[in-house]
């Protein structure tokens, strides 16, 4: 939320400076529909720039709280000993850029805008020493990278001529549902000169959506249906095999 606000403020501040809007971008679709046969989806982000510079695209999924527990050997057993709780960890995080990130902006700038998994900092629920938190954060990012939710390789933003650009955003099959933010930053000489933020919704559609909302809103009926189905299936199998 704060980041979206930041971008908004940034837009308000930078807009008057740019006589015309320097950056325009949009998505091929603002909805990723998860149906029963969903195996992942690709979206195209396209746009145009009116000033020279380098582009960085950041996609962030809905934030959630994540607890990282650390096991330590205690009397021969590996038990959970200490834990760090990170607030507002995006459920999905991907970066695309027109050049390697280090060539576009300084580490300081990248940390400020949260560009690249090595620059991500999540707020902890309790005040902690950075030295203590760092390995927990690294473990969290590694786990997310392994499940494909924080793609490790930065994607390429392609320029079609001097002004037009496009980039593909790939969502794996296990993307969390919710509201996403796609942020496009235009860098020039290591500083942001223009920015735009576009919302995106990842949502269950059709059968999956109906089952999910049914399970949430009519939990008892849902449970009864699940049980009735189980009993019927068990009975049907027993009956079928008696004849056979």
């Amino acid at each position: 939320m704060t980041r979206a606000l930041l971008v908004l403020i940034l837009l308000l501040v930078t807009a008057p400076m740019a006589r015309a809007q320097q950056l325009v971008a949009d998505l091929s679709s603002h909805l990723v529909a998860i149906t029963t046969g969903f195996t992942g989806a690709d979206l195209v982000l396209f746009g145009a720039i009116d000033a020279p510079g380098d582009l960085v695209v950041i996609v962030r999924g809905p934030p959630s709280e994540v607890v990282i527990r650390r096991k330590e050997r205690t009397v021969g057993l590996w038990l959970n000993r200490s834990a760090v709780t990170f607030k507002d960890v995006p459920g999905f995080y991907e970066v695309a850029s027109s050049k390697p990130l280090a060539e576009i902006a300084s580490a300081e700038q990248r940390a400020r805008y949260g560009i690249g998994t090595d620059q991500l900092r999540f707020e902890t629920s309790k005040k902690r020493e950075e030295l203590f938190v760092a390995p927990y954060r690294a473990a969290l990012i590694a786990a997310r990278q392994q499940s494909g939710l924080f793609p490790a390789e930065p994607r390429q933003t392609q320029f079609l001529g001097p002004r037009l650009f496009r980039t593909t955003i790939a969502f794996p099959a296990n993307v969390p549902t919710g509201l996403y933010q796609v942020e496009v930053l235009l860098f020039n000489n290591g500083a942001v000169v223009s920015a735009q933020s576009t919302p995106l919704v990842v949502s269950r559609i059709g059968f999956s959506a109906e089952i999910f909302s049914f399970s949430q809103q009519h939990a008892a009926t849902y449970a009864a249906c699940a049980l009735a189905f189980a009993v019927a299936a068990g009975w049907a199998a027993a009956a079928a095999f008696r004849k056979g």
Partner: protein
Amino acid sequence: MQIYLPIAEMPVDALVILLLGTGVGFLSGLFGVGGGFLMTPFLIFLGIPPAVAVGTQANQLVAASVSGVLAHWRRGNVDVKLGIVMLIGGALGSVVGVQLFALLKRLGQVDVAISLSYVFFLGTVGSLMLIESGRALLQRRATRPGQRKLHQHTLLHRLPFKTRFPRSRLYISALLPALIGFVGGLLVAIMGIGGGFLLVPAMIYLLGMPATLVAGTSLFQIIATTAIATFLHAVTNHTVDVVLGALLIAGGVIGAQFGTRLSMLLRGEQIRALLAALVVLVAVKLGLDLVLTPNTPYVVQTVAPGS
């Protein structure tokens, strides 16, 4: 074929889940155990969130046990009276278990507590069974009737509420089967398993039930405890995935029928030896996980998705 699971929020290969259901259903029909102690780790290994694995698993167990019980019922292998006494204990156990689970969760040691209790229960029960059934297999030539001492009076036989269970030819305290059911109910709520691996040996060794009645009677009471657990999981945690459940059930009910067939062909001690070997294997695997240095000491747990 990929199918998206609406509650687990991820796609799975339908064929893999069907096969998993069939395999576990087969064991369930053969041994009279739910097979949850195998299914839950497998589902988690496939990437399904543990809470959804436990909740959905309970739903699948209902179908497998109904299918299994009906098959045993036709052969007259269910002691309904004893089953109902166990069931009362089981219902109480699952209610208490839900509270216990909440307490462990607050302490942040749920996974370790579950692993430790798995290793303890599976390890002791499995090795005791392995020793006993191994001995029985070796002494096969000895005639069976003399084997079981009907009147070995221990402390267990001095408990009050002595009741006759004519089907099992037992005259024991009703507290004993109720207590066994209670422990089973606890396990259902905490671990999402039917607890059959514990109930079956307890019924054989503590109650001294005839081996032919054990599987059917244990499944009979597992139906009730798993149904209660499914309901509680669906209502309080919303973690029962019907799509995943349907796939597991489709495989499970068929597997259970084949398992029941095979159990007719094997002798009691052979079945017990197989089950014991399986239980010990799982215990050893879980025990090693607790002792050996893990790949990474960090465990990631997402608390509140999408706020």
